[in-house]
């Protein structure tokens, strides 16, 4: 028997003092109620023995005193937290690293989710803590969050455990192990208990350094840069989960066709983690309305990609190509076969989180463009090719500012109106006059060669102007805000500028006196220019992965200068929080999968976050885990759910003894 609470050397004097005090109290004369009787002699005759004041007589209620002393003994013993020597566990420092990643939402825990099962396991550990043990509860998803300090307070640990909820992200085991290693360094009897389903990156598991391989093989510090140092820490693993039943959407994105914004195509990747062939209904919804349903037939362990590439077309895989939908929010759902028409189709597998994925399409908008030209078939053709452009034409001599009414952009071909009539619209200038236009010029170049072109500017995406023949071109001078799109030996011949929400592009040469219209680049150049004008520079709206910090540009809601300091971000769970806007963008940590709404004033935009993690979707539970080449054991030194703290039973016995003493006193057994 050992004492983990107060040591025996303290308990004995404590008991002696308390027992002495109780005995003194028993020796004290009892204060009695005074009652008058008519004839005390009768009472004397009743009482056989004479009352005495001797110490022995004072202790006549010896049984009651003994009960009280036994009560004291039990209480004092409880203070000592006695344990059987076989169970003795000296003050350990324990970190319980609870996997709270998305895979812990799997519903194969019995009952409830894997996280519920993990909670039960950890509860048993908490209740089996020794008197000198200190435990820290840490949650692990892509972030590592300590929920408690090192403490032996069972109530605090259980409260933190009850508040633990899973995130829709992967588990960053490396970060969790590093945190645990740092927190346990220098602590006595360090113990790390990993509670999870084993859905971890194999590379991380292999990179852990659990023990020295011998002094001779001591590695240099540079060899350790990518290792997780857990030397000296006893690591245990508590597995949860029982099923591998999952079919997952691991990638989902959609984009509109550059030349026809009404149509879009979808990229989808589905993995069958089951060990049997599976059928599932794949449903596509646009703004909540079912657009398409396909029956998928997947082999065991098959990873199927659905794209609009030529390979897929050859393989006759049914992909969603050249689809048209009015909505912007696309949702892909995996459903049990034949259940797509039902109101509550139910879950396809044990892990419903990755049976849904979201993607956003760019806003569809037709631009009204006014072409001011004496006639330029090349430009007209390029503009007419673009389904997103509604074209109107006017000759320069007939031009007046009234013609700009209802227009989004204007193209001036070899013409620019007087300054007072300068349009407050997006403007494309083709071969502007030297003495007019918004850009200052420094003369003309004869037969320029395009030697430099911008790689970053949206107008120049997918464009190459190498070997373009140009008769002559205006040299633009560099000024503030002017970006060079193309230059001939550092002389800008194509420039762009954005002032507030007003964008201007200028080509310094007459396209009819160049071979540019004969090149593939020309229509793309026109499409890119008008996409840039409309703010739709991306044919693809990024679909983010949960568990990362997303930097979301708010350009669609206004220029950086116009945006306020804060945006309101509402996550898929409906929680809204203020997020600072910095350099025209907000940074959001994607903890939940689904659609996030970003509101700035009365304007809103949406972004989508998906789990999109094949490792996390692979919910095959690991009964054993090898860390640094060493198979981890189950944690020992815990009582596994049965309270073995003797002090609890001592207290219960003390309470029972109190009842007994009270009963015997009232029954006059001990008086």
């Amino acid at each position, binding site marked *: 028997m050992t004492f983990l609470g107060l040591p025996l050397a303290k308990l004995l004097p404590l008991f002696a003092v308390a027992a002495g005090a109780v005995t003194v109290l028993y020796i004290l004369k009892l204060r009695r109620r005074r009652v008058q*009787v008519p*004839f*005390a002699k*009768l009472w004397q005759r009743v009482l056989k023995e004479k009352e005495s004041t001797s110490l022995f007589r004072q202790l006549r209620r010896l049984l009651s005193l003994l009960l009280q002393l036994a009560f004291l003994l039990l209480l004092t013993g409880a203070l000592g937290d006695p344990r059987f020597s076989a169970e003795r566990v000296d003050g350990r420092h324990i970190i319980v690293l609870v996997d709270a990643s998305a895979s812990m939402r799997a519903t194969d825990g019995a009952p409830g989710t894997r996280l519920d099962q993990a909670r039960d396991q950890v509860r048993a550990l908490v209740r089996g803590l020794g008197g000198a043990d200190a435990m820290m509860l840490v949650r692990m998803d892509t972030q590592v969050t300590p929920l408690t300090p090192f403490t032996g307070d069972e109530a605090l640990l259980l409260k933190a455990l009850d508040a633990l909820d899973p995130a829709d992200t992967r588990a960053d085991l490396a970060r969790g192990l590093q945190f645990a290693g740092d927190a346990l360094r220098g602590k006595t009897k360090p113990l790390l208990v990993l509670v999870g389903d084993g859905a971890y990156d194999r590379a991380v598991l292999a990179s852990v350094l659990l023990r020295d391989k011998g002094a001779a093989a001591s590695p240099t510090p540079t060899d350790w840069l990518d290792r997780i140092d857990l030397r000296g820490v006893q690591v245990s693993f508590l597995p949860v989960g029982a099923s591998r039943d999952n079919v997952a959407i691991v990638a989902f994105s959609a984009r509109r066709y550059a030349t026809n914004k009404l149509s879009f195509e979808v990229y989808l990747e589905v993995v069958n983690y089951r060990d049997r062939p599976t059928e599932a209904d794949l449903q596509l919804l646009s703004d909540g309305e079912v657009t398409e349903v396909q029956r998928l037939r997947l082999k065991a362990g098959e990873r199927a990609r659905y794209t609009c590439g030529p390979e897929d077309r050859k393989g006759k895989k049914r992909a969603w190509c050249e689809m048209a939908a009015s909505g912007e929010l696309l949702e892909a759902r995996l459903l049990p076969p034949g259940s797509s028409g039902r109101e509550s189709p139910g879950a396809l597998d044990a892990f419903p989180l990755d049976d849904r994925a979201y993607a956003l399409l760019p806003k569809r908008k037709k631009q009204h463009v006014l072409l001011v030209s004496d006639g330029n078939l090349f430009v007209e053709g390029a503009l007419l090719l673009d389904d997103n452009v509604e074209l109107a034409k006017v000759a320069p001599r007939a031009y007046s500012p009234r013609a700009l009414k209802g227009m989004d952009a204007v193209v001036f071909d070899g013409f620019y109106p007087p300054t007072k009539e300068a349009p407050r619209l997006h403007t494309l200038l083709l071969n502007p006059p030297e003495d007019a236009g918004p850009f200052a010029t420094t003369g003309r170049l004869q037969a320029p060669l395009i030697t430099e072109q911008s790689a970053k500017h949206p107008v120049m995406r997918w464009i190459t102007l190498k070997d373009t023949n140009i008769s002559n071109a205006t040299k633009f001078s560099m000024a503030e805000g002017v970006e060079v799109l193309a230059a001939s030996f550092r002389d800008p011949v194509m420039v762009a500028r954005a002032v507030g929400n007003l964008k201007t592009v200028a080509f310094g040469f007459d396209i009819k006196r160049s071979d540019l219209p004969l090149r593939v680049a020309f229509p793309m150049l026109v499409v890119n220019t008008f996409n840039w004008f409309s703010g739709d520079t991306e044919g693809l709206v990024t679909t983010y992965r949960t568990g990362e910090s997303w930097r979301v540009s708010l350009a669609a809601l206004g220029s950086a200068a116009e945006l306020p300091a804060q945006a309101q971000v509402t996550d898929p769970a409906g929680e809204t929080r203020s997020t600072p806007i910095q350099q025209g963008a907000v940074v959001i940590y994607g903890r939940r999968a689904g659609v996030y709404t970003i509101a700035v004033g009365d304007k809103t935009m949406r972004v989508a976050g998906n789990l999109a993690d094949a490792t996390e979707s692979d919910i095959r539970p690991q009964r054993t885990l090898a860390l640094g080449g060493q198979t981890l054991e189950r944690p020992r030194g815990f009582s596994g759910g049965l309270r073995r703290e003797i002090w609890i039973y001592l207290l219960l016995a003390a309470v029972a003894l109190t009842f007994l003493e009270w009963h015997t006193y009232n029954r006059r057994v001990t008086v």
Partner: protein
Amino acid sequence: MRRRAKATGTASVTRSELFNEEFLKKLEYLHIVSRKLFSGLNRAERRTRKVGSGVEFADYRDYAAGDDFRYLDWNVYGRMDRLLLRLFEEEEDLHIYFLLDTSDSTQLGQPPKLHYGMQIAAALAYVGLANLDRVSVVTFADGLRDRLAPARGKGRIFKVFEFFRNVEPGGQTRLAASLRAFVHQNKRRGLAVLISDFYDPAGYEEGLNLLRHNRFEPLVIHLHDPREARPSLVGDLQLIDCETGEVRELTVSPRLLKAYAAEYERYCAELQEHCTKKQIPFFRADTQLPFDDLVLRIFRRGGFLK
């Protein structure tokens, strides 16, 4: 220093209200009943000490052990083979002494035993006065206290009432000392009605013997409150004797209460047995019963009425 006990509780009626119109009606009723009983009494059963002192033959009665056998009628014995005692009319009028215990212990109870004793004494005194006996009332505790001079006639009953109203109770019960003083002060023998709870630590035997040995005819009325036999006490107590102030510490348990009740009953039984042995008429006066019931019982039993 001896503790003086207070009377516990408040009497349902004050002492001045004890002898009201209602009480007088009851007395008159008792008097009428006593006369009926008198006419119906078997005179042979009436014992009197006055045999031989008178000249007019009155009656016979059965011989009892202790009687003076000089008064045996040997002729009747010869004829009927039965021992009969000749009785003669008393020449003197009968003296009736009421000895009322006014010690502290008689003030306890609800109603107080003292009040009950006063009512009994008043009722019997009324009947005695009405029968033209000489009635005297004496109170005692640790000695003789107050005294009402002997009187005759119904009209004197109000003096009796007044006397009782002005009684100052208190003191310990000392029967022997009180009755010794009584027999020394009263040479005229007669009926001595002793009304007490007999809570005398020294015992009652000596006192009763004094009366008997000095040729008084004692009649004992034991004031008894049944609630004293079964007090509602429990726990650790300090019992204080209301007369002696003696303190006794004890823990009262249900078992002890049971033993006390048995002891109390034994004490009462011993008193009754002693009186029976000494041929002293004995009556237990239960304070929870109407006093007139007891008075009627005394009449029926005989020994008080001529």
